[in-house]
């Protein structure tokens, strides 16, 4: 299925773009994490990488559906 990715901070630098459509072969956030780590090994070097759907943090068990928009949230550093 296709999902939309939106990336901020260093995640945007790693993807080299703010938004992209990903041909996603898995089901959960866990699967997405694996796919991203495999396609973009730099993600594995980050302290953490979190994911948000519908403006809320979601854990690895969260199941994605076609055309979901997933926001990539590297370690925050506001303030």
């Amino acid at each position: 299925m296709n999902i939309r990715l939106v990336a901020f901070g260093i995640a945007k630098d790693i993807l080299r773009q703010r938004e992209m459509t990903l041909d996603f072969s898995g089901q959960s956030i866990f699967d997405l994490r694996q796919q991203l780590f495999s396609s973009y090994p730099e993600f594995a070097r980050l302290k953490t990488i979190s994911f948000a759907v519908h403006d809320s943090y979601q854990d690895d068990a969260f199941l994605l559906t076609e055309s979901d928009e997933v926001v990539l949230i590297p370690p925050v550093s506001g303030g």
Partner: protein
Amino acid sequence: MACKIDIQVVEEELSAAQCEAHVTDDGAGGTVVFIGTVRNQTQGKEVKRLEFEAYRPMAIKEMEKIAHHIAQVWDAIAISMHHRVGVLQIQEAAVIIAVSTPHRVAAFAACQYAIDTLKETVPIWKKEIFSDGEIWVAAHP
């Protein structure tokens, strides 16, 4: 009593006076304000300027969560949280948080909780720009 909440994520220069005005109240005995400014150096290395970016809708949502928690736990009268995004020069304020409560001890605890939690949960990212490169703060272990 309802707590007055004022959350902003803006490109413009922040104003402590504006945050303080929001939390002023007849019943307030203590107001604590935190102003986070851009330092001129990180571990001895000179910082030229900073850039902040936010995932705005979720940043506001997470800041609102913090405000509601404060309202409940510390009986705050009013809370103002402003975060700036875009390019910031040294000495400029990146964040201002003002909290007013009937008694002062609660205002200190609530304001400290707000900035500590903001730094952990609110999707805002800071890039430090040096003369010889730039770095996304806290991204790597």
